[in-house]
């Protein structure tokens, strides 16, 4: 029973973290190259343009949901299960979501990287 709660929390953390990452990546692509913008128009212009992007705040909100689900997940499940399982699944879910929503070309190289890192993160916790 407790295990089911822990996996529910893991699913929620993964979903929220992936949503957050995709929204933040989308927002920053819309803002444009921060380094170039800073050099040509100054830091204030960068901050202004980020604050004028509504999806940025949705992304931060999703990240906050992920953080609080992690806190709740930790009170239901084991630290050594919840943290690595959600971190590991987030890498794979992000590769999938980036392909679907951000139209990134996730080729063999990127898939291999995501899976290697996900497996590695899981192993590091053992």
């Amino acid at each position, binding site marked *: 029973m407790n295990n089911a709660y822990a996996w529910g929390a893991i699913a929620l953390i993964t979903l929220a973290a992936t949503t957050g990452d995709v929204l*933040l990546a989308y927002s*920053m*692509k819309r803002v*444009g190259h921060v*380094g170039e913008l800073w050099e040509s128009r100054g830091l204030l212009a960068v901050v202004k343009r980020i604050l004028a992007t509504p999806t940025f705040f949705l992304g931060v909100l999703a990240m906050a949901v992920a953080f609080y689900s992690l806190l709740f997940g930790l009170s239901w499940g084991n630290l050594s299960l919840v943290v690595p399982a959600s971190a590991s699944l987030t890498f794979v879910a*992000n590769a999938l979501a*980036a392909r679907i929503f951000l139209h990134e070309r996730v080729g063999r190289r990127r898939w291999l990287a995501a899976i290697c890192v996900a*497996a*590695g993160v899981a*192993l590091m916790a053992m």
Partner: protein
Amino acid sequence: MTFRKYLVLAGITVFSTLGDSLLARGMKDLGGASLHNISALLLAVLNPFVTAGIILLIAFFASYMSALSWADLTYVLPATSLSYVLVAVIARIRFHEEISPTRWLGIALISAGVGFVAAGPSSTTHHERESVPEREEVHS
């Protein structure tokens, strides 16, 4: 990829690792703080370790946003996963923790993953503002 972009990726890795470690170190001073004890959590900001940790995590977020403005999400995430390795190395040096064979395998897999993405292009999407992926080579 310019040298400055590699610096931003390194910044993400180092700031997140150090920020988390400092935050964990500071929270240990407080003892078992819980959500029921909100005032203790608010006062935690006064702990120098916690303050330093928060500053580093803000630096992490700024460099993460900067990287996402010119690189793919599927590039930035694996490229900065060396932070997991960095945590193990810090634990080994600072606290003399043993690294088990399973963890060594994990370190090898993460490093391999980082190598796979780092060898490829950092951006594959064609965006109005960044039409050619390697445009920055002309710039600098």
